[in-house]
């Protein structure tokens, strides 16, 4: 059985990021966004941050807070639910929908940054790109994720990555955020034996 170095024991749980790490990671990502999209009081329109529910929405709000703090410009922030665009709807019982909120600025001709907690197969992002298309035509779309755990099934990559984590498919990455889970942390769990 080959497991990446530092992987969790079967049935075990390991903390990848502590609460302090999560805060520092988000701050670093905010700086990267500012640098890459040239946010500033004298620059053009800031990018629009769209979180993918549930945890992406909270992450987008936190990222926007840090950007506002560092650059003095508040990027418009919203949420984009992708449930109606999933390619696996027929494989599971009916899923409840989450909120979609496009900021009043709209997304036409803006840089849109999709924000999610974990990048895995890339299917969520593909669905998000489809959903975005029905809301307007952004100038460019970028992707920010707190954790990239690999195993892509689509030609998709992130522009901003909080932490790269090599994982086995049998493991699960759980992002906990205080807004939803009462504390901040990223956990690696191995719930079944690796195939």
């Amino acid at each position, binding site marked *: 059985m080959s497991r990446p170095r530092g992987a969790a024991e079967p049935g075990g749980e390991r903390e990848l990021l502590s609460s302090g790490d999560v805060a520092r990671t988000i701050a670093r990502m905010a700086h990267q966004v500012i640098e890459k999209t040239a946010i500033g009081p004298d620059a053009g329109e800031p990018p629009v941050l769209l979180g993918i529910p549930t945890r992406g929405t909270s992450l987008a709000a936190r990222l926007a807070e840090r950007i506002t703090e560092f650059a003095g410009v508040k990027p418009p922030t919203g949420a984009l639910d992708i449930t*109606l*665009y999933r390619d696996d*709807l027929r494989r599971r*019982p*009916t899923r*409840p929908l989450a*909120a979609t909120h496009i900021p009043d600025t709209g997304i036409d001709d803006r840089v849109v940054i999709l924000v999610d907690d974990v990048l895995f197969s890339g299917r969520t992002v593909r669905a998000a790109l489809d959903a975005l298309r*029905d809301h307007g035509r952004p100038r460019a779309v970028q992707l920010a994720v707190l954790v990239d755990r690999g195993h892509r099934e689509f030609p998709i990559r992130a522009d901003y990555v909080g932490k790269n984590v090599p994982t086995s498919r049998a493991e699960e990455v759980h992002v906990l955020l205080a807004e939803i889970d009462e504390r901040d942390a990223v956990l690696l769990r191995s719930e079944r034996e690796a195939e």
Partner: protein
Amino acid sequence: MKHLLATDGLDPDQARSILDTADELKKTLLGREVRKLPTLRGRTVITMFYENSTRTRVSFEIAGKWMSADVINVSAGGSSVGKGESLRDTALTLAAAGADCVIVRHPASGAAHRLAGWLADAGTSVVNAGDGMHEHPTQALLDAATLRERLGELKGRRVAIVGDVLHSRVARSNIHLLAALGAEVVLVAPPTLLPAGVETLPVTVSHELDAELPAVDAVMMLRVQAERMHGGFFPSAREYSITYGLNEKRLKLLPEHAVVMHPGPMLRGMEIASVVADAPSSAITEQVRNGVHVRMAVLYHLLAGEEDKTA
């Protein structure tokens, strides 16, 4: 959920889940460039209407199309029904032709239930879009969605249903759904227009409209269904209108926040005065608008997830 045949017996959590889905659909479609979701691509929905209808048929058709389902309308007039084909054979034909969902309106109470039985082997979902004097569940759901929008949670709210309760499937569906969602229902009608066994329903009954109005959060006016009346249910239309019609004077008896509703088609001047129908407290056009989102939500719960083999 496999079928939607009635609100009587509908699980309150399931009902809330449909209403929440409708809410989110409404929000996500608001101000969009493309009002089209790919969710039901490749699914076929057939509407079978054996009775006249404008809003229900159109609203189901739009709901299906906005979710990318292929929607086909069959009406009794233009189909083999006119040649004497039975409901069962028509339904089996439509299922064999590839319908994933059949939406049926029929003058006979219980038609949708029978259909669901006949189509059990085909795996086709059935939605009751009104069966005789029995139920019209999507109307009750869209009424609940409209009430939630105007009043918030329905628990503890008081709703008056006024008029021809006897012939009204809308009333029957609303009584069960409102009760399931925790609202109090009071029926206001002349004794001749109340159904037998009304005492077994989760409602209170009154014959005095003026006495009830000050205490309600919403009032649902029902159409007097002349086409189902074969006999003297009240002395004259004028007398009915004076006793049970919602006129401008009665509108003033309602609390400030109260909502006026009508499932349509309404007879202005009969059960509802024209000025009342167009007043700010009237939610009649919102009901129609919410009808599309609620029917999208119903189709989503029936067709989007993995196949429900339980029912």
